């Protein structure tokens, strides 16, 4: 799939993101603001337990009801947004922080360095993602920080591969050749000319990776390997809700909906940004 797209999709021009893109941007912004708001205000203390009020339905006091310890579900959803988003952003940031330089290096040097980076990628791809994450958290113990490391780990090869691919096409451009002739070193060219030109590609990939990281964090927490109490995350809420499926299905529905809406928003935004910033990038569902 290295051929440029034959232009099958109608591509929005200029600054316009299209309906989907704006919807996605609005969702992402809304979730981010909810997470930020939860730092200073939630309707109730998300950790406050009241055994007498457990498993209540929605009421004026608890708009989305309470969980098995009588904690307010709305407050926990808000606090959960914070953890889910923080874990995903930091994990993807770390993955990009290692993967992008690796990709740049591979593209700039070629030769054995390139070969080594690509073989490392093959190795990383040989382990199914969730399996790696389960092993890493089993090794380090459950917790948000270890979940971040596990998710960052499988983001490295993704960013390395995308960066290398994009950078290679930039290196073929005439202005790079000119810079080479002007006597500038490969590291300088990578930073000054290659990186700015592949920024759009990386932002697009980053958006998609954050969406995937939210799903990954939820999966890990659901298995009991991610956030641990008293941290709240959407995946943890699902983990706790499972045994109450018969008694109070609402507890399992709400955090799941929050995940779906957030991931949907990020994907819509990512798709729109791709069309806008980098029409050459094609969907790569395998890049996780």
């Amino acid at each position, binding site marked *: *799939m290295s051929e440029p*797209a*034959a*232009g*099958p*999709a*109608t591509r929005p021009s200029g600054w316009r993101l299209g309906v*989907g893109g704006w919807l996605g941007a609005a969702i992402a912004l809304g979730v981010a603001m909810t997470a930020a708001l939860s730092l200073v205000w939630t309707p109730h203390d998300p950790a406050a337990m009241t055994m007498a009020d457990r498993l209540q339905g929605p009421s004026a006091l608890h708009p989305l009801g309470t969980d098995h310890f009588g904690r307010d579900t709305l407050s926990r959803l808000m606090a959960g947004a914070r953890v889910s988003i923080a874990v995903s952003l930091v994990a993807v940031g770390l993955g990009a922080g290692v993967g992008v330089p690796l990709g740049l290096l591979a593209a700039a040097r070629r030769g054995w360095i390139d070969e080594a980076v690509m*073989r490392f990628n*093959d*190795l990383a*791809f*040989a*382990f*199914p*993602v*969730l*399996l790696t994450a*389960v*092993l890493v958290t*089993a*090794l380090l113990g459950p917790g948000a920080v270890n979940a971040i490391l596990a998710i960052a780990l499988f983001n490295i090869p993704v960013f390395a591969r995308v960066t290398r691919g994009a950078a290679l096409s930039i290196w073929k451009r005439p202005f790079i050749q000119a810079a080479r002739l002007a006597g500038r070193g490969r590291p300088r060219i990578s930073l000054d000319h290659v990186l700015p030109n592949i920024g759009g590609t990386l932002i697009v990939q980053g958006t998609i990776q954050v*969406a995937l990281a939210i*799903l990954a964090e*939820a*999966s890990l927490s*659901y*298995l009991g390997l991610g956030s641990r109490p008293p941290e709240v995350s959407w995946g943890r809420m*699902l983990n706790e809700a*499972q045994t109450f*499926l*018969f008694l109070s*299905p609402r507890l*399992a*529905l709400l955090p*799941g909906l929050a*995940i*779906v*809406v*957030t*991931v*949907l928003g990020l*994907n*819509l935004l990512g798709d729109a940004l791709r069309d806008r910033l980098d029409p050459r990038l*094609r*969907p790569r*569902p*395998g890049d*996780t």
Partner: protein
Amino acid sequence: MAWFLARRAVALVLTLWAASLVVFVVLEVLPGDPALLILGVGAREDTLAALRESMGLDQPAWARYLNWVGGLLTGHMANSLTYDVPVPALLGPRLAVSGPLALLALTLAVALALPLGVLAAARRGRATDVTVMGVSQLGVAVPNFWLGLLLVLVFAVGLRWLPSGGFPGWEAGLGPALAALILPALALALPQAAILARVTRSAVLEVLGEDYMRTARAKGLSHAEALWHHGLRNAMIPLVTIMGLQFSFLLAGTIIIETVFTLPGIGRLMFQAIGQRDLVVVRDLVVLLAATVGVVNFLVDVSYALLDPRLRHGRAGVADE
């Protein structure tokens, strides 16, 4: 083409070797003494030492690594630390659950995604297209384990049509066994189908824009005939790539889905074995999964060669015109 495949085969072997080394080292540093887990809190030190010796845990690490890899190559795998049976004997019945589950899921995903993707491409921009793309966008965003919970809620708790989990065994008959696999397979398949439908659509759209399709139409073939005779084969190349990648997703997905549905499969075995520090089972399983992923990717490469005449004839530039 032979040269290409040979190179891929060598890379596969090297990757597996590196994988075995990584897994071994990682498990070496995992905290948890399997002997203590087996004998529990009442055990005395001399009893523990006796058990460790009988399990070969007192040997140096390199000797255990060589023993292990040697055992893998010759088929003489060690006994599971917790179940105390040879790993192949343990894996057999588990594969009989996970294998059919993954196949059923893949079949469901392809059966749903290909027609929908082609349909969306054929009706590009119209209501059908918009609906398919909208639903698939939603499908990509749904965590498979949550979908599993929803399916349980609807079909097991609400309607009581299907079991909420567990596996009666194939000896209970095809009906009950399949009934137990349908919900987990759906939970695995639907998010994958959403991805596959999107890729199918864009692959078909791309093919529709190619010169040879216009040529085919000019030769008097109908739209559908042209798509069928020339388009699909070329669209298959990206699709096969995605399906290969999805296979490894399905394998990983079994870890979580088999936990949701308490199916006695490979994924749950892996999850349990990690918790129980059954290092023998964990490392064999990880290498087995890595090998499966590697082999599937290798087969994907082979199928490229078969699908793409340029690769098949070992020379570039001869298009299918």
